[in-house]
């Protein structure tokens, strides 16, 4: 309802359109992307809750102690942590307008991410080969859903990373590409935050139990 009435001298009501003043392109992208990350955080929270409830229901199947190899998890964790710091270096070189170095750090980040996914997939195949499939017990269903969802996010991040490298290669470090790289930076660091929860609550507390 338009009620903005301001009678002028003639007595006729004047209506105003309450229009927002224009914002530059990408003005609200980082806040919007942050809110997406927060909603993604809720997805992971629900998966963590499911794992917390079902994590001890082994159905006479293998327990975390029989399945998890902590040295391998430690290597995987360091891969993700290293990819986080190399992405940070990519952002720093981007701020200094060094296109070639930005591309190099992005490529290194991608390799660390690829190593993470590779190790995780080999762990999964090893577990499935031993009969610890998602169908085996509620614990394993919750485990594969939670860790698999995280791995899927990292894989999507890798595809996004390659896409942005092609973008930067074709168009350089233009404003739009900087914005996209900043969004991927938030996404990538966010996945590392989620992984802190995974290695603590799933792997370390699982082996401790």
């Amino acid at each position, binding site marked *: 309802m338009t009620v903005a009435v301001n009678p002028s001298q003639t007595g006729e009501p004047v209506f105003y359109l309450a229009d927002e003043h224009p914002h530059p392109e990408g003005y609200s992208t980082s806040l919007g992307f942050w809110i997406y990350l927060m909603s993604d955080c809720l997805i992971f929270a629900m998966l963590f809750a499911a794992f917390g409830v079902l994590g001890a229901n082994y159905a006479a199947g293998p327990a975390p102690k029989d399945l998890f190899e902590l040295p391998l998890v430690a290597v995987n964790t360091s891969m993700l942590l290293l990819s986080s710091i190399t992405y940070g270096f990519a952002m720093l070189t981007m701020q200094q307008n060094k296109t070639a170095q930005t591309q190099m750090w992005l490529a290194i980040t991608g390799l660390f991410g690829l190593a993470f996914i590779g190790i995780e997939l080999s762990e999964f195949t090893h577990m499935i080969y031993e009969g610890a499939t998602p169908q085996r017990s509620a614990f394993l269903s919750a485990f594969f859903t939670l860790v698999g969802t995280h791995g899927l996010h990292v894989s999507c991040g890798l595809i996004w990373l390659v896409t942005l490298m092609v973008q930067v290669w074709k168009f350089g470090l233009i404003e739009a590409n900087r914005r996209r790289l900043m969004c991927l930076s938030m996404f990538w660091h966010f996945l590392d*935050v989620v992984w802190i929860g995974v290695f603590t609550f799933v792997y370390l507390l699982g082996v401790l139990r």
Partner: protein
Amino acid sequence: MNTDTHAAHADDHHHDDGHAHGTFSTYMLGFALSVVLTAIPFWLVMSGALPSKQITALVIMAFAVVQIVVHMIYFLHMSPKSENGWSMMALIFTIVMVVIALSGSLWVMNHLNSNMMPMHEMTGMK
């Protein structure tokens, strides 16, 4: 820019546009802290240095919380000022939701487990 506040927060690089950027030293500091905060929990569990499992569990959970805060500050550049405080509002809302969902689920399901008798025990009572 106010020189007083700048001097007080020497490593704070918040621009007026609301976008925060890190520097080489803040990234390296965050990375070093993360390495330490990751290595200690792994070492605690793998060596069994602490006598009680319960204490170990509490300690590694505390380490995880600290490391999440470290990542938020040094990698995600969270500050109460970024995006005029809106990203902090979104974060606080999400944390409240996560705490309610996690603690609620665990509490309710634990109650169910301890108060409800499993099916096979029920049939055995007849």
